[in-house]
C-alpha cells in the first residue's frame, strides 16, 4: 500500500485568524481516513487547502509523487484528487446529467459514457432524474449527485466534506453505506464529519481536530473506545 497524500505542517490564515496551526497527517492507498472535530475546528479549511482553494503559508502537501501546495485548484483535479465540498455545491441550474459531465470535465469524452453508467448503477435514483434540473432534487439526492459527480473524475483520492450534513437520519445511513461500498470497490477516502459516531465506524484511521490542531490520532476503533473522545464527540 503506497502513500497517497501527505500533509506536512500546514498553516492557514483567514486574514489575521490562524485557522490551521501546523497540522500533519497522511492517507495511504485503500484507507478511509477521517478528520473529526467540532464546528470551526478547521476540518473544511484543511480540505479546501488540500484541494487548492486555500493556500498554506508553510509546509507542503504531497499527492502521489508531487507537491500540490502551489498547484491551482483545477489542475489538482486532473492529477486525481476530487472533493465533494461542504453543502454539496452541485450546479442547481444544470441537469443531473450535465452535473455529472462537469464532474468528468478533465477526462476524454470517450470515457464519460462508461463512468456515467457506473454512477447510475451506484445511484439508481439519479438515473430516474438524469434530465431533471438539479435544483429540483431533494437534499439526499443532491448529496448523491455531489458524490457521483466527484466520482466521475475517476479520482485516486476522494475527499468528502460533511456528507451527512443536513440530511434526514435515513439518508445519513444510506450515504455511509455508499461510502462503505465505494471503499470496497477500492476507493481511497478522506472523510470530514461532525457525525463522529458514523465517521469512526467506517474509518481505518482517524484524526481529531481541535481549534486548528490535531489533538489525537488512532484507528477508528481505538478512538471510538477512547473515554475522552466518547465524552466529547460521541455523546456518551
Amino acid at each position, binding site marked *: 500500500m503506497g502513500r497517497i497524500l501527505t500533509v506536512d505542517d500546514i498553516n492557514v490564515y483567514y486574514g489575521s485568524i490562524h485557522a490551521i496551526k501546523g497540522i500533519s497527517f497522511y492517507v495511504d492507498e485503500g484507507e478511509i481516513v477521517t478528520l473529526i472535530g467540532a464546528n470551526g475546528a478547521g476540518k473544511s479549511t484543511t480540505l479546501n487547502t488540500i*484541494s487548492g482553494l486555500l493556500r498554506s503559508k508553510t509546509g507542503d502537501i504531497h499527492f502521489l509523487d508531487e507537491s500540490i501546495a502551489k498547484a491551482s485548484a*483545477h489542475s489538482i*483535479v486532473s492529477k486525481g484528487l476530487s472533493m465533494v465540498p461542504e453543502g454539496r455545491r*452541485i*450546479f442547481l441550474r*444544470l441537469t443531473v446529467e450535465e452535473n455529472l459531465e462537469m464532474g468528468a470535465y478533465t477526462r476524454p469524452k470517450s470515457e464519460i459514457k462508461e463512468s456515467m453508467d457506473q454512477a447510475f448503477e451506484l445511484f439508481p435514483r439519479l438515473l430516474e432524474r438524469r434530465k431533471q434540473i438539479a435544483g429540483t432534487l431533494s437534499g439526499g439526492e443532491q448529496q448523491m449527485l455531489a458524490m457521483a459527480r466527484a466520482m466521475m473524475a475517476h479520482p485516486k483520492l476522494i475527499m468528502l466534506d460533511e456528507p451527512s450534513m443536513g440530511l434526514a437520519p435515513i439518508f445519513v445511513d444510506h450515504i455511509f453505506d455508499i461510502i462503505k461500498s465505494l471503499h470496497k470497490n477500492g476507493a481511497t477516502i478522506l472523510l470530514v464529519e461532525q457525525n463522529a459516531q458514523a465517521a469512526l465506524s467506517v474509518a481505518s484511521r482517524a484524526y481529531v481536530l481541535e481549534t486548528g490542531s490535531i489533538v489525537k490520532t488512532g484507528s477508528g476503533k481505538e478512538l471510538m473506545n477512547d473515554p475522552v473522545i466518547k465524552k466529547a464527540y460521541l455523546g456518551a
Partner: protein
Amino acid sequence: MDFYTLIAQIINGLQTGSVYALVALGYSMVYGIIMLLNFAHGDIIMVGAYVVYYSIASFALPPLLAVILAVIMCTILGVAIEKVAYTPLRSAPRLSLLITAIGISFLLENGAQLLFGADQKSMSPMVKGGFSMGSVGISYAAVVTIVVSVIAMTALTILVNKTKMGKAMRAVSEDMGAAQLMGISLNRTISFTFAIGSALAGIGSALYLCAYPQSSPTMGSMLGIKAFVAAVLGGIGSIPGAMIGGFAIGILEALVAAAHLSMWKDAVVFFVLIIVLLFKPTGILGKKIQEKV
C-alpha cells in the same frame, strides 16, 4: 398610423433590436460569469465600427472581409481588456471592478478621439437597396441584420447549452469554487466568455453600420447603454432574456418614432428601465438568486 406603416416600423424595430440584442448578450454573459457590468462593452462596438470604416474607406477591402476583421479585432480587444484590467481584480470588491470598467470605457473613447479624430466618419452603406412586399418597403440591410443576428444567437444558444465549454461557462457562473473543483479553469472559461461577448459586439458593430453608416468615438456609449437597458429588461445574466430585451427595446423605439415622438425615444427607453427596476428588478427572464445551503 396605418397598418403598413406599423409593419414597416416593426421591421425597423427588429433591425435595431437585433443590434441591441447582440450587444446585450455581451453585457449579460459577462455579468452572469463575474458579476461585472462591463461598461467598456459599448466602446468595443465603436472600435469595431472604426475597423470596418478604415478597412473599406482606406484599404478598399470587400465589406465581408472588413466585417470579419472587425469581429477578430473586437474579440482580441475584449480578451485583452479582461486579462489586463479585470483578471487582477478577480477577488476585489465588485465596485472596484465596475469603476475599472468605466475607466476602460473612457480610455477607449479618448483613445479613439486621439487616433481617429473627434469628427464623425461617414461611409457609403454596405448593404444597399430593398424590395417591397405589398405596400411595405423592406431594406436589404434590415433583412441581412435580422438574419445574421438570428444565426448568431442560435449558434450562441447551441454553444452554451450543448458544448463542453458552454456547460463550463454555466457552471462557473453558478459557482466558481465548485467549478474549479471539477477541474474547470476559471481563467480559460472567463476569457472565453469575453471572447464570445466581444465577437458578438463585433458583429453588432457591422450591423449597426448597416443602419447608420457613420462612426464616432462616442457612438458606443449610447448604444451600449441602450443594450444594457435591454439586458436588464430581459433579466441580466439570462441569454434568452438579452435577446428578448434587445428586440423589445428596438421595437419600442420604432413605435415611439412612428408616433412622431422621435425626440422622446431615449427618454422612453430609460423610463422603461426605471419601471422594470421598480416592479420587476430581475427582468423578464431574470433568475432568482438561489440560496446556498
